[in-house]
């Protein structure tokens, strides 16, 4: 449950849970390892009013001005890969979580689903790699203006 207290703590909990799982279920063939972060970004509507959303998010929908100069709720999903790691990234406007804010979902699922070594060290090395890719996609997907809001 939130708050998220950082990757190190998170992965240590996951590792302990996985050890418990293997004690009960045994070592199973792994078909997929993923690191999925569902981020909700709350931006005050007064900051968004009359401003291009690309000043906050660099991943969204593209729409020609001839179609409309503004856009309401949207959702977009894209599959791509980063250095052999597959990524399913989704971005959407969701129900505002706060008053006088607009909430954006930025859901990043970084995964591998083939040639997975069953060795424990290899599993957590992959998890670390997925975490790096997730960070790379997140950082590439937001602007400095939005990054400032996290400080």
């Amino acid at each position, binding site marked *: 449950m939130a708050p998220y207290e950082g990757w190190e703590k998170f992965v240590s909990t996951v590792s302990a849970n996985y050890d418990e799982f293997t004690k009960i279920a045994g070592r199973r063939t792994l078909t997929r390892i993923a690191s999925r972060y569902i981020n909700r970004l709350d931006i005050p509507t007064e900051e968004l009013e009359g401003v291009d959303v690309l000043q906050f998010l660099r991943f969204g929908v593209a729409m020609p001005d001839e179609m409309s100069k503004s856009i309401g709720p949207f959702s977009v999903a894209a599959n791509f890969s980063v250095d052999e790691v*597959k990524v*399913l990234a989704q971005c959407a406007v969701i129900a505002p979580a706060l008053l006088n804010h607009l909430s954006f979902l930025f859901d990043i699922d970084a995964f591998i689903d083939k040639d997975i070594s069953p060795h424990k060290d290899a599993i957590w090395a992959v998890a670390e790699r997925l975490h790096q890719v997730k960070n790379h996609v997140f950082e590439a997907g937001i602007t400095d203006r939005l990054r400032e809001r996290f400080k």
Partner: protein
Amino acid sequence: MNQPASAFPQVPIAFRPHAGVVKTPLQFGSNAELVATQRTDLQRLLQGFQLPVGDWERFVLGAHDTKSTVRTTPVHPSFQQRVFDASVEMKVAVSNYAMHLTPETRAKLFHDLDEVVNVEDWYEEDALPSALSFRDFLKWTIFSKRYNWLSIGFSDEGYILVAWKSERALLSATFRGNARVLWTATRSSPEGETYAAGESTLQFFEREARLYLD
């Protein structure tokens, strides 16, 4: 047909051409089932952060097989379970706002929920707490930055009741889960006590609260 402009906040987005589109999407290994599952997750998030409500539980059969069979079996949760679930649902709501709340405020919320929503103090015929009502309270608290509520409770309908106290006034509110608040205020002055009551939006109630609490 286009929605009216007032139906949603307008967010201008500039046009830019795609860098490139792959011809074989499955080269990424995302099969339709996976995407469908994640779409469902997304849909759930789009529905105002509602948790799935239902009396179904999943049992995994044949755990020692290489492939597990999952069947859905109806389960009727007990009264204790329903009260516990209601409490958990509200704590999950708190976690959705964790980044906007201090650890002290989260601890206060959890403590107050445990004090109020428990099997000892709840009756089977009582309506369970409304998570929507509780979310409105959280939204309002973050918006107004008023973390010093005196007490919380729940109405017969399951709406959260909250009270605040200042040197000269007592303010109480019922958050009805529809972005509106019913409130009452008692203000003391040398001329005696004055009473006021109203129903307003969450934003308007923040302005009203200033009159009594600041």
